[in-house]
C-alpha cells in the first residue's frame, strides 16, 4: 500500500484523483459481486466464498504491509468467519453479506475513531513522553495555569455570546424578509458566508479590522467608520479583552446565515390563522413576533442555538488564522493544537478531553431535541 501511495504521489495530482477513486470503486464493485453470489448454493460458489473469506483479509493486511503475525491472524480469522458463515442461522452466506456491507466502514471507524479516542483518554493521564502514568497532573497543570484558565474562559465566552447573537440576528432578519419581494436574494446575501472557509473569512475580517496610524488614511473599513465618526483607529485584534469579541464577530458573520435559513423555514410553518387572530386582537408587529412567532418556532430555535453552540465550542480556524491565540485569545481547540506542536501529547490530549467533556452535554441535548421534534411530526 505504501508503495502504491508512493508511486501515486509521483504522478500529477490531476491523474491521482481518477486513479484513487477508480481503484476504490473497482474494489467496492468486486465486494458487491461477492455479496451478490454469496447466498447461492453449489460447490463453485462455496469455493468462491471460501476464497473471498480468506484472501480478502489476507490481501488487505498484505497491502497494508502488515507484520507477518498480523497477516496470519487475519487469515485465520477469515477462515473462522467462513466456518461461522456456513453454519449461520440466517442461511449460508448471510453473515458474509452483512459483513460485506458493514465491515469496511465499521473497521475504519474502529481503527480511526474508537481506538484513538480510547488512546487519547489514556494519553491524557500520561506524561509528555507517554512513558509514565501521572494521574490527573495534566488537567491540574491546565487548571492551575493562568493561560489554561484563560483558554477555558475564552471558550465559555464564545459559547455564551456567539450562538445567541447569530440566532437573534438570523431570526430578526428571517422575520423581516419573510414574504417580501426579493426574499431569495436577501437570503443568498446573508447565507453566502457559510460557503466561505473560516480561513477565507478570517482574512476578509483581518482586512476589515486593519488599523493605520491616526494621521494616515485608513484601509480597514471598520476603522474608517470609527474615524468618520470622529474616533481614532483601534487595533481590534490586540486590545484585550475585546479582541475575543472581534473574533466572535467573524463567527457570527458566518453562522447567521445558517440560523436565518433554518428559522425562515420554521417561520413559514407558523399557522397563518394564529397570526391573523393576533392581528384582529390588535397586536402590533412586535407583539405578534414575540407572542406568536417565537413560541411557534421554539423547537427550531433550540436546535439552532445548540448547533451553533457546539460549533463555537470547537472553534479553531478563526482563532488560529487571525491571532494564533496571541493576546489572550486562545481557545481549547487551538491550545490542543499548540501543545501537540510543542511535543506535549499528554497536555494536548488533556485539552481534547476537556473539550469533549464540555461539548458532551450540548450534543446529547441537541440530539434529544432533534429526536423529540421528529416524534411530534
Amino acid at each position, binding site marked *: 500500500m505504501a508503495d502504491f*501511495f508512493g508511486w501515486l504521489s509521483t504522478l500529477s495530482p490531476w491523474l491521482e484523483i481518477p486513479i*484513487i477513486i477508480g481503484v476504490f470503486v473497482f474494489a467496492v464493485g468486486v465486494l*458487491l459481486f461477492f455479496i451478490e453470489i454469496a447466498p447461492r448454493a453449489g460447490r463453485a460458489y462455496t469455493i468462491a466464498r471460501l476464497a473471498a473469506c480468506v484472501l480478502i483479509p489476507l490481501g488487505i493486511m498484505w497491502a497494508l504491509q502488515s507484520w507477518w503475525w498480523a497477516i496470519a491472524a487475519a487469515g485465520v480469522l477469515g477462515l473462522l468467519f467462513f466456518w461461522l458463515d456456513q453454519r449461520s442461522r440466517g442461511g449460508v452466506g448471510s453473515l458474509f453479506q452483512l459483513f460485506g*456491507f458493514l465491515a469496511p466502514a465499521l473497521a475504519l*471507524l474502529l481503527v480511526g475513531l474508537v481506538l484513538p479516542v480510547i488512546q*487519547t483518554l489514556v494519553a491524557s493521564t500520561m506524561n509528555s513522553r507517554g512513558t509514565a502514568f501521572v494521574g490527573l497532573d495534566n488537567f491540574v497543570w491546565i487548571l492551575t495555569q493562568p493561560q489554561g484558565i484563560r483558554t477555558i474562559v475564552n471558550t465559555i465566552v464564545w459559547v455564551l455570546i456567539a450562538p445567541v447573537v447569530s440566532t437573534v440576528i438570523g431570526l430578526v432578519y428571517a*422575520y423581516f424578509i419573510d414574504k417580501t419581494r426579493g426574499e431569495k436574494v436577501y437570503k*443568498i446575501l446573508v447565507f453566502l458566508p457559510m460557503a466561505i472557509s473560516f480561513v477565507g473569512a478570517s482574512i476578509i475580517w483581518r482586512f476589515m479590522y486593519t488599523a493605520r496610524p491616526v494621521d494616515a488614511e485608513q484601509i480597514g473599513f471598520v476603522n474608517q467608520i470609527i474615524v468618520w465618526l470622529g474616533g481614532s483607529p483601534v487595533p481590534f485584534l490586540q486590545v484585550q479583552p475585546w479582541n475575543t469579541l472581534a473574533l466572535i464577530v467573524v463567527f457570527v458573520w458566518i453562522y447567521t446565515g445558517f440560523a436565518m435559513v433554518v428559522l425562515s423555514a420554521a417561520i413559514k410553518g407558523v399557522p397563518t390563522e394564529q*397570526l391573523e387572530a393576533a392581528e384582529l386582537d390588535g397586536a402590533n408587529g412586535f407583539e405578534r413576533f414575540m407572542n406568536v412567532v417565537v413560541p411557534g418556532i421554539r423547537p427550531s430555535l433550540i436546535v439552532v442555538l445548540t448547533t451553533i453552540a457546539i460549533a463555537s465550542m470547537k472553534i479553531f*480556524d478563526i482563532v488560529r488564522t487571525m491571532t494564533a491565540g496571541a493576546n489572550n485569545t486562545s481557545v481549547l481547540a487551538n491550545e490542543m493544537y499548540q501543545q501537540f506542536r510543542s511535543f506535549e501529547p499528554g497536555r494536548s490530549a488533556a485539552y481534547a478531553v476537556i473539550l469533549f467533556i464540555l461539548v458532551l452535554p450540548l450534543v446529547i441535548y441537541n440530539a434529544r431535541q432533534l429526536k423529540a421534534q421528529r416524534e411530534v411530526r
Partner: protein
Amino acid sequence: MTATELITTGRKAKAPAFGEAKRRLTSPWATLAAIIIAAIWTIPTFGILVSSFRPRVEIQTTGWWTALQNWGWTTENYVEALNTSTGGLSLLGAFVNSFAITLPSAIIPLILATLAAYGFAWMEFRGKNLLFVLVFALQIVPIQMAFIPLLQLFSQGELFGFPIIQAFSDQAGYAQVWIAHTIFGLPLAIFLLHNFIAQIPGEVIEAARVDGAGHGQIFFRIVLPLSMPAIASFAIFQFLWVWNDLLVALIFADGNVAPITKLLAQMVGQRGEDWHLLTAGAFIAIIVPLLVFLFLQRYFVRGLLAGSAKG
C-alpha cells in the same frame, strides 16, 4: 423543519397557501433594517473582491471604498499570489492539492457510508440497534480526540504500542489526509444516509428480491439510484467541509501536499501585511465554494444544514 429532515426527507418547505393573508407582516422600517443587515453581511466580501484587483500601492495607502477616486485596476495580484511560495509550495500548487485532497475525500466515505447505511437499514441481525447507536454516538466525539493516535498509527504503524502495519513513508502523498477525512466523515454520513435509505418503501425492495436479486443487485440497481438526492447533498457538504478545513490539514497534510487553506493561514502568519497577496489568495480559495453555492444551491443548503454540527 429541522436540519436533518431537510436532507433526509428531501422535502422542500411547503409554500403555505396564504392568499389574502399574503399581506406583509412587517413595516417599511423592517425592510430598511433588512437591507442594512444584508449590506453589512455583503460589504466584507465585496471589499476583498475590489481590493484584490487594485494595485499594491493603492491597497496599502487608500481604502477600497475610494477605488473610484483612486482609479487603477490590475490582475497582477492574482499572478503574484498564485506564484507565492510558502515552505516550497506555491499557492497554485496548493490550489491543485485542495482538489486532489477534496474529491477523493468526498467520494470514498460516501460510498462506504452508503454500503453501511444499507446494511443498517435493510439487513436484520442481532445487536443492530445498539451498533447503530454507537455509530451515531461517534458523531459527538470532537475529532481532536482522534488526532494524535491516528497520526501515530500512520507514522509508526502502532495501535496501543503494538506494531500492526508498516508505517506510511514520507512519500505517501495525500494518503494520510484522504484516510483521515474518510474516517471523520463516516459517522455523520452513515447516520444521514441511513435515515434516507430506510425510508425507501419496503415493497420496492421486496419486489426486487422476488425477482431474484440479491443484496448486491438491490443495492446497486435500486438503493443507489433512489438515494441520489441524499447522496448529492452529503457529497456537497463533505466537499465543502474538506475544502474549507484547516485543522485536519494542519495535522495530516504536511509539506508539499498542503491544501490552500493551510497555505493561506501560513501566509497570514508570515506576510500578514501584504494585502495585495492575501486578498487575491483569499478570493482564489473562496471562489470554488462560491461557485458550488451559486450553481447547486438547493443541495448546498440542505447539505450544510444537515452537517452543521460536524467536527
